[in-house]
């Protein structure tokens, strides 16, 4: 455990980086209506979108009487519906996230905080959820920049506990949040049950899914030596290995195959996949990676 993980998340340096992020994000959004996102759904806003034929049962208030006067036919005026964008963040707080320097959990917290900050600044609705063996009750629906302290406070109080069950958490999440929006899943995805079912639950909700795959440096470049009995910190599973060059090579091949397979799987389903280690500065990740991936416009 590093000292960095025990220090509060809201340290001056972190806040400074968030400030920078705010400026940068404003620059990105310059020339646009702040705090607004147009939904594809036709709705009841003031912005006209289209006409369609009247059918029985339609709201009479939406009939375009001017057109009826000219053409003697009933048309309905359709408007683009304005709605709040929901940004859901699903953070893994299982014990496996408590490794690395900084820990993967702290790194995940930073990413979550940064994304929330960007969202709050853009007047999006932020929902923070965490999960380990199941979905934990999280921070529901905050909005506005003034709420940033709540986000930070909430994230600060998170502790790594329990085993991870992404599938169960995703099912609960899908039930709990039927609405559409963006969901960012931050996890190490070291779940022996796999990630496919979990992401399918989310896909079924027609959400825009972003996967942030966080691994510690020790997992990417193992520094193990000798004859070891590896103990899984979550389920106490044991694996006995004798570290050798072939084994390390094999491990890296396995890791690459896993990451590559994950990425392919995500890409094929329209899921944005971002792989990172805890060594990548989170603000850089936010700016570069998320922009490239389209998470931030």
């Amino acid at each position, binding site marked *: 455990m590093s000292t960095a993980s025990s220090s509060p998340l809201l340290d001056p340096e972190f806040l400074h980086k968030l400030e920078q992020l705010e400026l940068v994000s404003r620059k990105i959004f310059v020339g646009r209506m702040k705090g607004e996102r147009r939904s594809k759904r036709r709705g009841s806003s003031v912005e006209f979108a289209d006409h369609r034929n009247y059918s029985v049962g339609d709201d009479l208030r939406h009939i375009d009487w001017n057109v009826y006067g000219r053409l003697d036919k009933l048309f309905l005026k359709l408007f683009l519906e304005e709605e709040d964008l929901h940004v859901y963040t699903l953070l893994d707080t299982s014990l*496996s*996230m408590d*490794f*690395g320097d900084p820990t*993967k959990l702290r790194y995940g917290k930073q990413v979550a905080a940064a994304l929330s900050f960007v969202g709050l600044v853009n007047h999006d609705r932020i929902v923070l959820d965490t999960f380990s063996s199941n979905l934990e009750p999280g921070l529901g629906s905050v909005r506005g920049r003034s709420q940033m302290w709540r986000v930070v406070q909430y994230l600060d109080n998170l502790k790594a506990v329990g085993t991870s069950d992404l599938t169960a958490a995703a099912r609960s999440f899908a039930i709990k949040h039927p609405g559409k929006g963006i969901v960012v899943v931050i996890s*190490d995805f*070291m*779940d*022996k049950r796999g990630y496919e079912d979990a992401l399918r639950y989310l896909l079924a909700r027609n959400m825009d899914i972003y996967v942030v795959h966080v691994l*510690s440096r020790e*997992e990417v470049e193992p520094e*193990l*030596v*000798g*004859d*070891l*009995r*590896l*103990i*899984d*910190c*979550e389920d106490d*599973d*044991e*694996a*006995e*290995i*004798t570290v*050798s*060059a*072939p*084994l390390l090579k*094999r*491990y890296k*091949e*396995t*890791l690459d195959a*896993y990451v590559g397979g994950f990425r392919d799987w995500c890409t094929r389903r329209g899921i944005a996949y971002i792989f990172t280690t805890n060594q990548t500065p989170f603000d850089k990740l936010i700016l570069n990676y998320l922009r490239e991936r389209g998470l931030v416009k």
Partner: protein
Amino acid sequence: MNPPPGLPMIVPPAQANPLGGLNLQFDPPVPWSAGWGPVFWAALAGVPVTIILFYFLKLRRKPVQVPSTFLWRKSIEDLHVNSLFQRLRRNLLLFLQLLAVLLMMFALLGPQMKGSTRVGQRYVIAIDNSASMSATDVRPSRLDEAKQRALALVDAMGPSDLAMVIAFADTARVASTYTGNKAQLRERINAIRPARTGTSLLEALQVAAGLANPSKQFGEGQVASEVQAPRLMVYTDGGFPDVEGFSLGNLVPEIVILGRPPSGEAASASRAGDGSSTPPSNNVAILALQTARGEDRPDVIQLFGRVRNYRDEPVETTARLFLHPLDEPIGDGRLIDAAELSLPAGGTQAFKFDLVDPGPSGLEVRLDLDDDLEQDDRAFAAVGRPRTARVLVVTEGNRYLLNALTTATAGEAAEVVEIRPADLETDEVRRALIAGLYDLVIFDRVAPEEPPAGNALYFGVMPPGEAFAEARPVEAPIILDWDIAHPMLQYLRDLPLVLIRDALVVDPPPGSTTLIESDKGPLAFVSPRDGYSDAVVGWSIYGEDRQLNTDWHTKLSYPVFLFNALRFLGNVEEALGEEVHRPGQPVVLRAGAGVDRITVSPPGGPEDEIPRSDLGTFVYNDADEPGLYLVSWPDGEREARSVFAVNLFDPRESDLSPRGIPPEGVSGRQAEPYLIKIGYTEIEGTRRSRPARLDRWWWVALGALGVVLFEWYIYNRRVYI
């Protein structure tokens, strides 16, 4: 998996050697480390098994908590696809450990090339330092090579082994008694100097046999001894005659032959052509050198020599004669003559130098060539002053005897004093005899009470002493045989014609040489006495009552015999420098009366003072080097000087071809001439010393340590193959 190596090797049990313990090539095989029991072996064999089990049971794995075993499991599963062997193959550390353990087990096995017992191997290291071992056909010399071999053997000795060192040439000298002190053994071996003498293995064998066969029973030859037979290592070039009359008992000699072997072709060719010739070697040697005064011109010294070529090619060389005057230390000498020599391959040539008598001086002949043995390229001779022997004749007026001693030739050689038997009782004569004033005393039919201090010649009477008390008179003996090789009987031809009426015969005491044999027994003999010689002739010219007893005086052999006796017993030859001295043998010197000490200057050595011995002579024991020895003593106002020469004229030493190993392709009966015979046993030598019982376990242990270190390095530096 294969059963782990390191199980006790199955070794055939020791076999009795049908040759009675004499086997040069191989010792009877002996189980390794016979002292260890089966429990030990089982435990030892269990070690690698345990290590492998440890690896499989993973008893020593370090628990490490990781975020997830998810990826590791997948990796291991991939590796599990490979076979178990594959996994083992990859496991370098395990193999290094197994290797280390195997090395240590090998060390525990006590890796001995051939062994007998764990404790107390005894070695007798016999090093031949004879003249031929100075040959340089193996660099730097055969002796140095022998020393190196012996040192290697000493280095290989175990901590409980003992060794003794014998240096042998014509005599054997114990250089070091039994000791386990390697430093002392090395020092003693290094201190062995080359001797310039011939070779006799018998002495070395006798010394070694005394240790090897401590309870030897004569007759049956059974040895009932618990003492382990020492291993006799003989480092030699085989240049010695076969040893006869010696039984090896349980002594197992191992003869290491040094020297460059003749090529098989040349060796077999020479054997095919001439049965007696030996394989060629790179040496040309002077085998004889002797001075003599000219028969007709006494003022001319003749120098006869003989040179032999041992090479298989003709040799052209020059023999140069150098004169060493006595009035200065013996140096390089002055070249006074030279002779061209043309020697056929394997042939001999004689040479002769005539020179005007230079007075007492040393002569040296050198051959101008380069061969493997330097010593025999030089030969020395001494020219003495013509000296007359002082002879006392005790006779009752035997004029035949006196006449024969006072011929012109004899008169040059001897100064004869005649006394009557009655004069023996006078004090003057007694003192003179005890003081050794006379070189030779001739007793004619009268024996003294005490033998004189000098050589004696008895006619018709026996010397005093118990050994001659058994003498018995015989009548009319007939002379059957005589020793023509003896100097006293040279040129005697007509002895069978001599008639004898009465004579005395006796069995000569031990050490005597019989001169004349008759049908009744030995008529004449020479027996040694305290450094002198007593020559006894069993009959005299006159018998009882002055009756003629024989007609010998009418024969030519009578004066010749007396002249020979004057030369041989009167020390005349020695004075002429004709006596041959061999290296390592005591040289008896005589000086003027009244001289207490003489000084001997050996070639290249410090001067040596020699006191007069009880016998009136001066005995010099350190004539080990061939060369000219300058002798000086005060003679009144000035210093008297003399010289004697020491030479090794030994064809066997000069023949450098190593003996003891048959050439390639020669076996069976044909190989017999090449073998060295000791008693009735033929021994084939070996070229290299058979590996001794070398305790090399510490090397293996070091190797194990190295492997462990290497493993440590690999473990820490994560070196992967």
